[in-house]
């Protein structure tokens, strides 16, 4: 599965980056989301895969039975996806407000102050 996931991660990166490079800012949103999936899955994959053994200690014993999935990448991912969620929420609203304020969804029309030179 690691190999499959490696390709999946690469694919998600490619997809996310491709979408981000579109001119439509609506697609930019999708690209950002795909990119955050890609990162999440990457950490999960490189952190090592262990099937169906959650890092939870059964009641009454003091350690989980081996093998168990590495809890550290899980905790990291949890933090990371939560953070990306917050950031994405903001980014999405920002894009919407930009569209509303500027009246375009073509990022070529959003050259900002650089366009003034």
């Amino acid at each position: 599965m690691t190999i499959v996931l490696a390709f999946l991660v690469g694919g998600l990166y490619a997809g996310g980056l491709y979408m981000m490079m579109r001119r439509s800012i609506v697609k930019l949103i999708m690209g950002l989301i795909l990119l955050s999936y890609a990162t999440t899955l990457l950490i999960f994959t490189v952190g090592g895969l262990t099937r169906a053994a959650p890092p939870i200690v059964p009641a009454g014993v003091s350690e989980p039975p081996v093998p168990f999935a590495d809890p550290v990448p899980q905790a990291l991912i949890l933090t990371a996806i939560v953070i990306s969620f917050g950031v994405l929420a903001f980014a999405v609203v920002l894009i919407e407000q930009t569209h509303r304020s500027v009246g375009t969804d073509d990022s070529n029309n959003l050259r900002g102050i650089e366009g003034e030179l």
Partner: protein
Amino acid sequence: MLVAVLSGFGLSLAAPWAVRVGRLRGWLFALLPLLLTLYFLSFTPAVMTGEAITASYNWVPSLGIQLSFYLDGLSWLFALLVSGTGIFIFIYAGAYMADEPLIGRFYAYILIFMASMLGLVLADNLLTLFIFWELTSFSSYLLIGFKHKDEAARKAALQALLITSGGGLALMAGLILLGLAGNSFEISALVAGECLTEHPFYVPTLLLILAGAFTKSAQVPFHFWLPGAMTAPSPVSAYLHSATMVKAGIYLLARFTPILGGTALWHLLLPAVGGLTMLVGAYLSLRQVDLKRILAYSTISSLGALVFLLGLDIPLAAQAAIVFLIVHSMYKGALFLIAGILEHETGTRDVTALGGLARIMPLVALAAGFAALSMAGIPPFFGFVSKELLYETTLGLQDNAILFTTLAVIANMMMVAVAVLVFVRPFTGQLVETPQQPHAVPLGLWLGPLALGLGSLAAGLVLAQVGAILIAPAVSAVVARPTAVKLALWHGVNPMLILSILTVLGGLVVYRYRHSYRRISNRLDMGRQWGPAKWYEFGLEAMLSLGRLQTRVLQHGYLRIYLLTINLVFFVLVGLTLVTKHDFAGQLPSTDLRVHEAVIAAIIAVAMIVVLFARSRLAAVVSLGVVGYGIALIFVFFGAPDLAMTQFAIETLTVILMVLILYRLPPFATFSSRGQRIRDAVIALSVGALITTLVLVSTTVTQPTLLTSYFAENSVPAAKGRNIVNVILVDFRGLDTLGEITVLGIAALGVYALLRLRTPSQRKVDLTATVETELVAEQDKSKEVEAM
């Protein structure tokens, strides 16, 4: 000595307030240079015995930087020059700029300059020297641009600053190299230390230091800033741009002669550059009609002569240089001040538009006469002695004596012509109508030039004393061994005298035919199109164009190209490292795969492709949801229930968010061309392939982690939780979570502000603004009133 140097800085802080004393302010400020002159004079006996007075204060000892001062003959002479001229300049400026509202700032700057110049010549530490060096450039900038409303003044100030600072930067590098080569930053130690001319750093060091000296002392091809600097008020021109600052380069060369001098390179570069400058300055000088520009070019010529002399391979050269230095400072300072008076009184500096002023301002005319005579090298003026010495030096050379002597004679003929021009045209003949009606000149104005002019005469009369007291210690310092100096007006009829007479006669001839000269030289003029001033402008323009071009190329404002660039950088850096550094010998991770895992992975891939090519936004959002849910299922399969739960929850919320947002956004549009899409796809796929490789490679070297076993062992006993992931989140690595919820809080604030905060213009236009928002705004206003 530190106090002496810093006093100028101290007073400059007070200057804006000190000017309130009114008309007497010039005299008041002159007290400081007077005191300083007296202070330095008090060292006369010591200096004459060849003793060096040192003072050292720790500044940045760990970098070898001391505020160390070294008063020997050379620095003493320069210090006297700076403070002595300063007296007259300060008095003069008080009268000259009587109505200037910003006179306080003027005194502040010129005091800073004076202090810096003193620091420069007294410094023993290379870095200290450099610091004061830069400060002189900077104060010069402020003074050249003193008439700051005038665009020409601003440009000239910038030009002077860029040229001298550029040289300054080279000097800095040179001084650092010198310090590194000589293992000390103290000049006295370097002089005493081992010979550096064989050191591998020697050539770059010398070139860099020369670059500093040549820019500051307006050597060709950096000379053009000096005429530009004539936009400065005349006291500044007299003080900085003839008597002192431009001599800093000369000082530097003299100072470093014992350290860097004596090599073939030295004897090649200095005479070449100096000689060229001498000629070019002289050539250009007579072409001018603006009095100050005439003087400026002649100053360039003189500075060239000084560099020329310092580079000649003969002991007498140092003596000739020091004498000429003093001579020039006195007569040129006087002439600049006189030029200032003329402009002040008549409203013009055009030498052809003046005449007969001797009747109105006799004392000024007297001063001008003295100065011009000294400049022309007429006995018994000090200038005569200097010219004799010059010829004696060139004639004494072993190589190129004829060539160099001819050069000197030609340049000096021109100087004679200039001297005649600046005295005869304005002061003799018919009184000419001028823009302003000239009046009698007040004491403050004529005192300075007259004193300097008299000085030129007096020095010629007490030559022996001048030679013993002023010249000898300085020369000893330059050649780094005690040297006696014997000066005399009369040596009998010798080749030098004949050359002197020839020079004066030639100068008169040149003066006579000055109009033809101007015409011919104007016709031959190439400087305006090809001269270094053009290079400067071209360089500046090229730099600006390059900047604009680069901005267009790199800073174009297209977000997608920015992202493309990042991708390319990523691909190149990571790809190259991966390919060149890594050997792909490691075994691939296990290929063990279950049906459901494969199916979910395939579904994720398919859903992602749907996202990429979806025509409808909502189809894309639904497919994104599928991708997210699919990833959550992978979390399930590999034992991450907390992750899966969170992913499901977040995914759902993302869908809600997207749904709430999307219906306000336009439908998907395809703006880019097919070619762009293919290009982007290729790049994106390349990066993706790189990531895949990275994942594969890094999973082959996965290490058993220390953390995991610790967490597993301690989760229940120490942290009292069975869900290790949760224990990590709230306990082992709780700080991460604290940051994480902070991000969420900020994001929420951000969304709130984005949606609620409207610019005033938006408020008007935005018809969708809800009554509720407006109500809130109303309440806010009332609250604001309360708060005020």
